[in-house]
């Protein structure tokens, strides 16, 4: 073989190897036979069916970095690799994979265990009424179910099919039914074989790239076995029992306040029975958490150095893509933290409504 | 011309490095039993040619046959019967000479392990390194390394030895030993291809000569033919003036003065001697004049002999 011939052989081998991983992506996607209505129903139902797989979420929202919201900041601002085993809404396991270990949440009915490898610690807590977002909320089927609340067939259009996680998936574009939503649209693709949402993309107003993406890289509809869903701590594990799951749960249980019944015209959701208020649903939703002065002060400081912040004596507010974060009050005060997918005007209105409309109650303890 | 088999034969052998033609249509012809002197100034393309013969450098065009087989296509087969020393010896500095030879022998085909130790000892003995201890090669002198390189070339009793400047770095004593060794090997049937820029070395050892100049083979012939008689007779005498007088009377005889006598053309040596001695001229030496290799090479090359090293220049 000549010199040129040898180099050509090497070049051909190299290009084949470069192209090989792309072949799966280039297979033609089928055309969807299901209509938008049927697709909506399928997408919503996924959360009640068993499945398991590897998912990956990616957020571009640089939230203010405050200690007690740590995981939330990471979830919305970074890439997160997840491994999920889902039997139904009350029995699942979601592993958040880290380079140096993992943090797993395993839910078994009313109890949720969080296992952290690096701390060597397993904390048990009861499943609270209200809490901050956690990885399990962001897996495509779960996120889809939440975003589709209140969405009807009139709000969706069909998108061209794509190949995702090794199958052809039908696409839907969802426009938020509520004018108060800061989300421009949500694109989602439902696998034609697995009937599971495989990719969810959330777009803010006027943004060409999604602010938040959640996708399956690999998924199966096999029901997960007990061996993966049972968590049994080893003798060397520190076992803890937590009364409160996170800051939202703590405030909800113990803050001696009650939020008003409406905010920015949105009604208080059915889950709200304590100090924390959740208003609206689906793509137009906001959570209102009462914070003590120490917590509020730390958060206010962090928010004040976030790019695009606006601050006056009434409130501190930042908008990050579709997500608005508002903290009422000024330095030295406690305040209400409002976070949600509302337009700027609606969020400011909700802030005023909550800070003027809440009532004190007797300390439940 | 001898009719023995061809050991190295190249035809139109050419090597270009980019736009520079290092070797230009060289047609070597080395025959079985030759001690072939491959003479060329530094930079004449000698080493490139040697490397092409051994398959290290790939020819741009032309063909090579070594031991009757094409190179580099049959290299695996041919090179087991060739011993080589190319541009100085080389060895792993942290290992001893013996370990180096063993490693080299075990690296390629046709070096049976059964006979390895014996062959290594024999080779070391032949090159005068038999007494060498377990010192690593790092501690060897230049001359010792040269000998070790030669031992490596002899390890499998090759039919052809290709040696590039084999006496580099040796003292006069060592040079003599190596010359004797090469002649001895040649008597035993080994063909020797000796590449050198030293005229004297080639002149003393070789039976055939090829001269490379600027990448071209400008001369290739038997040493005897090159150094043939010139037809003149060298006369050494303490009485050059008397001798001239005596010879002046003879017609058709040319006489030229030389260093310590005369150069005479037109008389055969016996007759010349008779006339001089009868006339009472004392003659201390008388022999037919032969051509010197230096003159032949000078005539054939454009570069001049100043670019060839003389014996005296050796370190």
């Amino acid at each position, binding site marked *: 073989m000549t010199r040129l011939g040898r180099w050509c052989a090497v070049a051909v081998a190299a290009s084949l190897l470069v192209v090989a991983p792309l072949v799966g992506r280039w297979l033609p996607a089928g055309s969807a036979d299901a209509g938008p209505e049927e697709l909506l129903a399928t997408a919503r139902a996924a959360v009640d069916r068993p499945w398991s797989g590897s998912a990956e979420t990616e957020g571009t929202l640089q939230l203010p970095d405050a200690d007690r919201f740590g995981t939330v900041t990471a979830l919305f601002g970074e890439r997160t690799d997840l491994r999920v085993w889902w039997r139904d809404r009350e029995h699942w396991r979601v592993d958040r994979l880290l380079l*140096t270990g993992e943090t797993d949440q395993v839910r078994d009915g009313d109890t949720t265990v969080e296992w952290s490898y690096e701390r060597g610690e397993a904390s048990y807590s009861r499943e609270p009424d209200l809490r901050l977002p956690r990885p399990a909320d962001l897996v495509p089927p779960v996120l889809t179910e939440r975003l589709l609340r209140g969405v009807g067939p009139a709000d969706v259009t069909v998108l061209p099919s794509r190949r995702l996680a090794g199958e052809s998936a039908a696409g839907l574009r969802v426009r938020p039914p509520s004018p108060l939503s800061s989300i421009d649209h949500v694109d989602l693709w439902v696998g034609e074989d697995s009937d599971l949402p495989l990719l969810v993309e959330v777009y803010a107003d006027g943004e060409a790239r999604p602010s938040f993406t959640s996708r399956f890289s*690999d998924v199966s509809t096999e029901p997960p076995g007990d061996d993966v869903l049972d968590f049994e701590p080893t003798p060397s594990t520190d076992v803890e029992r937590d009364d409160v799951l996170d800051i939202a749960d703590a405030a909800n249980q113990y803050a001696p306040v009650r939020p008003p019944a409406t905010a920015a015209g949105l009604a208080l959701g059915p889950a709200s029975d304590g100090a924390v208020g959740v208003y609206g649903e689906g793509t137009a939703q906001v959570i209102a958490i009462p914070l003590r002065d120490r917590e509020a002060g730390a958060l206010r400081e962090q928010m004040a150095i976030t790019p695009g912040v606006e601050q006056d004596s009434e409130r501190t507010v930042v908008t990050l893509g579709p997500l608005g974060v508002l903290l009422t009050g000024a330095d030295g005060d406690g305040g209400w933290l409002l976070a949600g997918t509302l337009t700027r005007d609606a969020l400011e209105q909700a802030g005023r409504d909550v800070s003027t409309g809440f009532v004190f109650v007797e300390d439940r303890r | 011309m001898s009719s023995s088999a061809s050991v190295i034969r190249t035809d139109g052998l050419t090597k270009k490095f980019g736009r520079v033609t290092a070797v230009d249509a060289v047609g070597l012809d080395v025959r079985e039993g030759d001690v072939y002197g491959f003479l060329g100034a530094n930079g004449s393309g000698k080493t490139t040619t040697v*490397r092409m013969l051994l398959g*290290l450098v790939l020819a741009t065009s032309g063909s090579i046959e070594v031991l009757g087989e094409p190179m580099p296509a049959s290299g695996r087969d041919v090179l087991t019967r060739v011993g080589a020393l190319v541009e100085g010896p080389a060895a792993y500095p942290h290992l001893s000479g013996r370990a180096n030879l063993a490693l080299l022998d075990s690296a*390629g085909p046709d070096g049976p392990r059964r006979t390895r130790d014996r062959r290594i000892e024999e080779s070391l003995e032949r090159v005068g390194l038999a007494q060498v201890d377990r010192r690593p090669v790092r501690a060897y002198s230049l001359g010792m390394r040269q000998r070790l390189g030669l031992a490596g070339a002899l390890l499998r009793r090759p039919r052809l030895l290709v040696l590039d400047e084999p006496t580099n770095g040796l003292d006069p004593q060592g040079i003599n030993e190596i010359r004797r060794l090469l002649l001895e090997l040649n008597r035993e049937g080994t063909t020797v291809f000796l590449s050198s820029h030293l005229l004297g070395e080639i002149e003393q050892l070789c039976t055939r000569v090829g001269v490379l100049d600027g990448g071209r083979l400008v001369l290739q012939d038997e040493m005897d033919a090159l150094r043939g008689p010139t037809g003149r007779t060298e006369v050494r005498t303490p009485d050059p003036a008397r001798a001239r007088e005596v010879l002046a009377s003879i017609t058709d005889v040319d006489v030229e003065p030389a260093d310590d006598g005369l150069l005479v053309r037109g008389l055969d040596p016996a007759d010349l001697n008779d006339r001089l001695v009868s006339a009472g001229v004392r003659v201390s030496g008388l022999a037919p004049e032969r051509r010197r290799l230096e003159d032949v090479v000078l005539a054939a090359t454009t570069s001049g002999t100043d670019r060839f090293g003389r014996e005296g220049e050796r370190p």
Partner: protein
Amino acid sequence: MIRAELTKLLRNRRTWGTIAIINALPTLVAVLLAITDLGPRPGTGPAFLAAVLTDGTLFPLAALAMVLPLFLPIAVALTAGEAIAGEAQQGTLRYLLVRPVGRTRLLVAKLVAVMAFVVVTVLVVAVVAYVVGVALLGDQTVTVTGPTTSVSGTPMSTPELVGRTALAFGYAMLCMLGVAAVALFLSTLARTPLGAAMGAMTLLVASTLLLTLDAAQALHPYLLTRHWLAFVDLFRDPIRWDDVVRGVLVQGAYVVVFLGAAWASFTTKDITD
């Protein structure tokens, strides 16, 4: 030929010097951990380092996580960069080739020798780290605390731990194949062994850097170092094979391409050193 290469490798004092240096870091870390009892904060430091404080039998893995990103690939790059360029610089290459040793054979023998170096190095790291870990940090399997805990929080029996550790070390060896192939290719081009090694290290650094860059995401699946730390996945429960398998495939691809390039380059090269 392979035998000759192995002899050369094992009789070279530098081989053992390199191995000693590679082992120095984990040993130092073990000593420091034993003295201070200070683990890395979560999310920082090499994998398993937090866990070794309670279980010294995991120390070989922590040592692997320490040497795999930098020390080991540099040692491999140096060794493989030496392969052809070193022989050429020494002048021994021409004597090997006229011995004769086929050029393809020589390349394969060199790769085998480099891999032998990797295997020996990694095994020495494992053994040294085990001894150091158990001696300085304790052995959980013989203490009251019971079996080792997997990354997912489930118990791992001793045979399971040994098996997975063996797999992880095997995987680490495989990961070095790609570096070896790249350095070997550069070694056929470069005039000096150091040049070849530097070239391979440049690729490593570039690969590591691109991995942190979101803009280079399209390139990530092709990067040499992309899946190196995936050996941690072997200690999850159930074992997560995706990245490990992908890592093996990437290394395979690098070996095919760069060994091919080394072959194309070396077999048609004029040896003029």
